């Protein structure tokens, strides 16, 4: 491509995808937080009585699981806001959070599986917590798949919003599954866990670091969705124009009446 053309392209970008000085601050903060979290997870936190170093998976596993819940919470809130306000930006936020939530749920399942293989002795078991979490993953994968198959933007956003609200029902089920039913997975309880202050601090810093990462991911995915929406709007303009041409073109298109 010519230099002139690429200059034109640069000018067209309205919201930079987190570059510039704001991006510099955010990404620096993210890297520093991640580095501190890494140090605390691997060196600062003491070895656990039974699990030794393997318990260090706790910090990342709890953080990504918690952020999956948070992301799906954002999906539900954004879906409600979309149905209320009918502003497509809320829909973009919902789809961005849903995709990030699926990513974090995937990470929860993988890190849990690896940890479980070492401590429990199995990669997977049909325990209530694990099963409901896998169902959660399927619900939001289905949410994303459903969006791809409804071409009319308004219909898609409305159907997705309803799905996004109803799908959230599984989040409290996952959370309380360890208390409602007998399970292998331990209950989540910081108070009963007997964590030392070093362990609690490590968990807090790790959760904060992953939360910043989660928000950066949602924002980037949101900007991508806004750009895609703009493209979809243009596509519809072109389609309508083509349709006009086809209709005014008259007898050359015998199927125009259908």
């Amino acid at each position, binding site marked *: 491509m010519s230099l002139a053309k690429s200059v034109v392209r640069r000018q067209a970008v309205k919201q930079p995808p987190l570059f510039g000085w704001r991006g510099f601050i955010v990404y620096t903060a993210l890297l520093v937080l991640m580095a501190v979290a890494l140090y605390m997870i691997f060196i600062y936190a003491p070895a656990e009585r039974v699990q030794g170093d393997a318990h260090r998976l706790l910090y990342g596993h709890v953080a990504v699981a918690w952020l999956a819940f948070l992301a799906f919470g954002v999906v539900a809130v954004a879906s409600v806001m979309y149905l209320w306000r009918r502003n497509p930006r809320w829909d973009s936020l919902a789809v961005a959070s849903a995709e990030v939530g699926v990513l974090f749920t995937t990470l929860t399942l993988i890190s849990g599986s690896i*940890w479980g293989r070492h401590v429990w002795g199995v990669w997977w078991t049909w325990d209530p917590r694990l099963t409901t979490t896998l169902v959660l993953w399927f619900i939001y994968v289905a949410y994303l798949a459903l969006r791809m198959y409804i071409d009319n933007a308004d219909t898609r956003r409305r159907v997705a919003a309803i799905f996004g609200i109803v799908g959230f029902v599984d989040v409290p089920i996952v959370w309380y599954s360890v208390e409602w039913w007998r399970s292998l997975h331990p209950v989540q309880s910081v108070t009963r866990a007997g964590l030392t202050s070093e362990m609690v601090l490590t968990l807090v810093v790790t959760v904060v670091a992953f939360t910043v990462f989660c928000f950066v991911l949602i924002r980037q995915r949101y900007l991508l969705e806004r750009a895609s929406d703009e493209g979809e709007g243009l596509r519809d303009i072109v389609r309508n124009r083509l349709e006009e041409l086809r209709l005014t073109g008259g007898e050359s298109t015998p199927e125009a009446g259908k």
Partner: protein
Amino acid sequence: MTQELVFLFIGYAVIWVLLFGYLVFVTGRIRGVRDAVHDVRQELDAQRRQASE
């Protein structure tokens, strides 16, 4: 390296590789989609100008 350390490193490696990979992928896609939208817009403007002349 003991088995528990292997599990520990693989666990965190998977988490960070997928997170950073997704970040790079999405950020790269934003530029691509915006460029494409921009091109279509320019094309449409050019055609509109041509039609009005």
